């Protein structure tokens, strides 16, 4: 982890993983931009003024409460805590931080054994060379919303009892998936979706550093639009586009992000009868577009569409929500699109 934070390059094998795998690679693989440009100090974090300020106060005081970060993907939650840990512990980060995420075994047994054992260790307030450092360790539970309720419950007492020696930081997308006893023990920070201009500024900096020509920045605007404030996704999309096409273009971005073209969405919204619908759905699926993506874009289009009455908007949006839920449960795309299509036809005929 130190190497990764120092150089800003991912060296996957250096990570203190729970499985304890350590292999040495001489050659570093070309890093994804996302890892290469991960913020190195908390001041580098885009937006999130309040959170950064609080963190800065905590760092200067040398103490940290239990933390709970929540917010949409790609807003800098993991980056914030990694940077903070780096600033707190410097080169002893590896000994003081336990990072667990969804790819590690994280059932109740692990919480009971591993996390508890780690939490119970006492650490000194000085480094090996005698300089002072915070007298506690940090447990980072990334993607905590995928932990089971039982595992979360097992954390409760551990969190309280080991406050003297350990701080916990939970990171999740949906705070509602964390059980209340845990949330009440942490200070919560909400990470807002990033503001447009800041994202664009950051993307531009990175593109310049990589020597990629982005022209006037129209493509950057598009990248931000398609990614809804998710910096990681925007950056990955740009890199994929660069890799695949050798340059960054608007069409390329649509292709790599898997977006459904605008006119297809409009076509779906203006189907007239059942046979047309059947044909559309067949073609849509054969072109391998994603139904959930269509629903997402559809709901955005419906809300702002001028030619629909409020009643129509309500009916279509409600059905879209139902279908999207069914799709997530694994429903067949053909069925759900047909169902929603029927609702759209009925709504169109009955303004």
């Amino acid at each position, binding site marked *: 982890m130190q190497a990764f934070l120092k150089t800003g390059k991912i060296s*996957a094998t250096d990570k203190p993983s729970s499985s304890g795998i350590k292999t040495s690679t001489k050659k570093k693989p070309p890093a994804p931009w996302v890892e290469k440009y991960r913020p190195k100090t908390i001041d580098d974090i885009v937006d999130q003024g309040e959170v950064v300020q609080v963190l800065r106060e905590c760092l200067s005081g040398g103490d940290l409460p239990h933390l709970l970060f929540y917010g949409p993907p790609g807003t800098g939650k993991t980056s914030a805590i990694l940077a903070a840990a780096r600033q707190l512990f410097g080169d002893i980060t590896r000994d003081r931080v336990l990072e667990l995420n969804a790819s590690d075994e994280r059932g109740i047994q692990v919480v009971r054994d591993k996390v508890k054992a780690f939490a119970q260790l006492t650490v000194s307030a000085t480094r090996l060379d005698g300089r002072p450092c915070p007298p506690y360790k940090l447990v980072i539970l990334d993607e905590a919303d995928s932990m089971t309720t039982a595992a979360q419950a097992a954390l409760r007492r551990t969190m309280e009892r080991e406050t003297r020696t350990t701080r916990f930081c939970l990171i999740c997308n949906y705070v509602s998936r964390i059980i209340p006893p845990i949330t009440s023990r942490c200070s919560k920070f909400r990470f807002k979706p990033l503001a447009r201009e800041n994202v664009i500024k950051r993307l531009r900096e990175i593109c310049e550093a990589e020597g990629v020509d982005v022209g006037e920045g129209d493509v950057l605007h598009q990248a931000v639009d398609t990614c809804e404030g998710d910096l990681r996704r925007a950056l990955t999309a740009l890199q994929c586009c660069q890799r695949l096409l050798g340059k960054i273009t608007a069409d390329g971005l649509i292709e790599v992000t898997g977006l459904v073209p605008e006119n297809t969405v409009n076509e779906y919204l203006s189907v007239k009868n059942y046979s047309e619908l059947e044909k559309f759905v067949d073609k849509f699926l054969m072109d391998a577009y994603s139904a959930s993506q269509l629903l997402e874009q559809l709901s955005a289009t419906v809300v702002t569409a001028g030619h629909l009455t409020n009643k129509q908007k309500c009916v279509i949006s409600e059905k879209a929500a139902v279908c999207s839920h069914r799709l997530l449960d694994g429903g067949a795309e053909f069925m759900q699109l047909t169902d929603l299509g029927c609702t759209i036809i009925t709504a169109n005929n009955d303004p």
Partner: protein
Amino acid sequence: MSLWVDKHRPRDLMKLDFHKDQAIRLKNLVQQSDFPHLLVYGPSGAGKKTRIMCLLRELYGSGVERLRQETMTFTTPSNKKIEIMTVSSNYHIEVNPTDVGIHDRVVIMDLVKNVAQTHQIDSSGQREFKVVILNEVDDLTKDAQHALRRTMEKYVATCRLILIANSISRVIPAIRSRCLTIRIPAPTETEIASVLHLVCKKESINIPSDLAMRIARSADRNLRRALLMCEACKVQQYPLTADQKVPEPDWQIFIRDTASTILSEQSPKKLGEVRQKLYELIIHGVPPDMIFAGLLKELVKNCDMAMKCQVASHAARFEHRMRLGNKPIFHLEAFVAKFMAVYKKFMEESLGDAF
């Protein structure tokens, strides 16, 4: 003697028959020093696997075609032993994690870690990474998909993943945003027809363009099915003629048959008969969602607009329930019963209006 589908599968990226721009882009991708994780998606018979094998050949040379089958054993946290079939060469390994049902997470975690920890012995003239191919990623459990997230980042130095899916609706966004996604649309009918001509030429037989077009149309834009149909045609009658009957898959005929049974009479007795037929379909391994789609397509043909909407919405509801539950027959039958009720009511009302 192998089937035409395998015999005439393109082995080189430049020899692919359609989506040529994409092939050129993939070739460029291989030539760059770094190679990202890939997520390849498209309907079946669009050529996903063909493209991937071509890509691997481009990466490693002809060594990837020497395949061997192995059975791997994993132990779940609850100490249950599970076995899974893998196909591998010296450079890549291919698995179908959904084979083990809900234990797919263990397979993914262990397999990727296993592969990632072994390095290529002679990395001088080679790529320094191996490739893991995971099939049917969209059917993985959510747990398994979450397990992939960090694994993908952690072992980027020694292994690359190629994920294959039919649709990315069910792939979680976190995975999508870590991969280079490659969409492979199904070939159009003309493209299929031209491939048929090409294959027939290689087999030195003559195919009338009418027949080629007809096969292409009835193959649902599935190239594999088109080639199989074409071969079946040849077996049935040779030389091929323009007005030859194109053999349809049996299950399609059977579903149509079932639909007409439902339409002919709506009564509990008929429902019993339909149940037999549904069982028959399921026993023969036709996936329940295809039965659903087939039934819906056939049943709505005789309905008016309002009823079509009603039927479609019921179908969507029951199909969703079928995914959540584990006995497809209940939900298929529920749909049939519901349709019968709706249809009967509609018929009675329209008859009532007539008098």
